């Protein structure tokens, strides 16, 4: 049992200098809530390896529906007081899974797959997380897709049925 006080002793590395080294990296922006990088063609496996190397903890992954059925994916990492937010985009509604390299991504990827219809390639257990398998994935992209507000049946224009 131990009790410690004072600020985190963890020394943050120069993330701003390291992030551009990831293949497909984009511009890095310093905001009040941490570092932000937007990189549509990012090598997410290389990103995962770098974050592991610097000791960053994956806090969560956010999905945002964008046009043409694609989804913006934001990886939120924490390193002491730092938050590192890395935004990329699915390609043909798919993106490599980082779960084989980082188990903490498991449920976050399954949730985005379930709610946005994204295929995480190489995920060890790509089963539905929140909604029953009998329902189409992509509920957050098109919440009226299965039964619209008028009560008629329609299928999602963006997401193929499972």
């Amino acid at each position: 049992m131990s009790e410690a006080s004072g600020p985190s002793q963890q020394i943050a590395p120069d993330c701003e200098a390291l992030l551009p080294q990831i293949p497909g990296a984009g511009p890095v922006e310093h905001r009040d809530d941490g570092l932000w990088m937007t990189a549509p063609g990012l090598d997410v496996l290389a990103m995962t390896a770098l974050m592991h190397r610097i000791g960053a903890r994956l806090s969560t992954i956010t999905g945002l529906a964008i046009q043409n059925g694609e989804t913006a994916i934001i990886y939120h990492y924490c390193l002491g007081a730092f938050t590192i937010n890395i935004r990329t985009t699915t390609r043909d509604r798919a993106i490599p899974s980082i779960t084989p390299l980082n188990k903490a991504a498991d449920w976050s990827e399954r949730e985005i797959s379930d709610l946005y219809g994204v295929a995480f390639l190489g995920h060890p257990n790509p089963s539905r997380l929140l909604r029953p398998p009998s329902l189409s994935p992509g509920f957050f992209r098109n919440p009226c897709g299965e039964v619209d507000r008028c009560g008629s049946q329609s299928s999602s224009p963006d997401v193929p049925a499972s």
Partner: protein
Amino acid sequence: MPYKIPVGPFHPALEEPYKLSVSCQGETIHGVSIEIGFSFRAIELLAQQRNYIQGLTLVERVCGICSGVHTMTFCMAAEAVAGVDVPDRARFLRVIVAELERLHSHLLWTGIAAEDMGFQTMFMETFALRERVMDVLEFVSGSRVHYATNCIGGVIGDIRDADTILAAIQDTRRTLERDLVPVFTESRTARARTSGVGVLTKERALAYGVVGPTARASGVEVDVRRDLPYAAYEELGFRIVSAAEGDVRARLLVRAMEMLESVRLIEQALRKLPQGPTRAEMGFPVVAPGEATARAEAPRGELFYYLASNGNDTPTRVKIRTPSFMNIPSIEAMCVGQQLADMPLIQASVDPCCSCTDR
């Protein structure tokens, strides 16, 4: 002959619905697989269809235990996008409600842990004390569960009788120091039932990305109150509590000591409560186009919000990652090699909140 036992989604061992499929050989657990989604309400989606004031009411319903930290973190994210500064008095008031909430959440958990240990006397003692904390929350906010104290730019309402609250909190501290903490930290019953049970090693804790008391009991010292102080935690000198053993006993000890730290923080906040306004003058919140993240330490660990705005009165994206979402998967690692009879206590030791997890 190996066999499999389905536990849940509705089962006497579980406080909320989720499903554990437990594979056993004899009395020893070989593996556990977990299913969630039985309380899925699509709250993130609903929050994207409501204005910020309606959204506050909604996100408070993510959880019936840590409701206050949800509104606080939602407000912190909106305030970050809007560039609003929260007045000093509001920052202290937020800490008081957040720590009262942690106190009643940890007391709820210790009561459930006592019951799962077969320690009924402590269950009754713990829940009696929790009622007193709930009374204080009702005195502060008017509500026992959904306090509705936070708004974008500060807090709603104020504390006018700090002395009454201080007296009740000091009484709570005396009961904790005299009865609850010694029993949970020293009694042979608690020790025998929890030592070496459900171990989550530091390496596994890091791999699963667990947060809160579950992480701190495995030697992973993460606490947003220390790592990225918000509200008034920096002024109040927060002290992190951790343990290295990673078993159910360590999770019990960490929560027991955290209750004392919560009481200390509430006492300090009440004594140092600055004068002044409790909210920024802004009327109906106008949140400019932009995006931001916010982190706060809920009773079960780091709560994470991502909020995006296009400048309208309704957010375009609200992402909520609750601590139980990260902690529940680690039950798989805790249970392997353990006795089947210990499974209810092991899963409870994470303090799993399915309402939070499913949203």
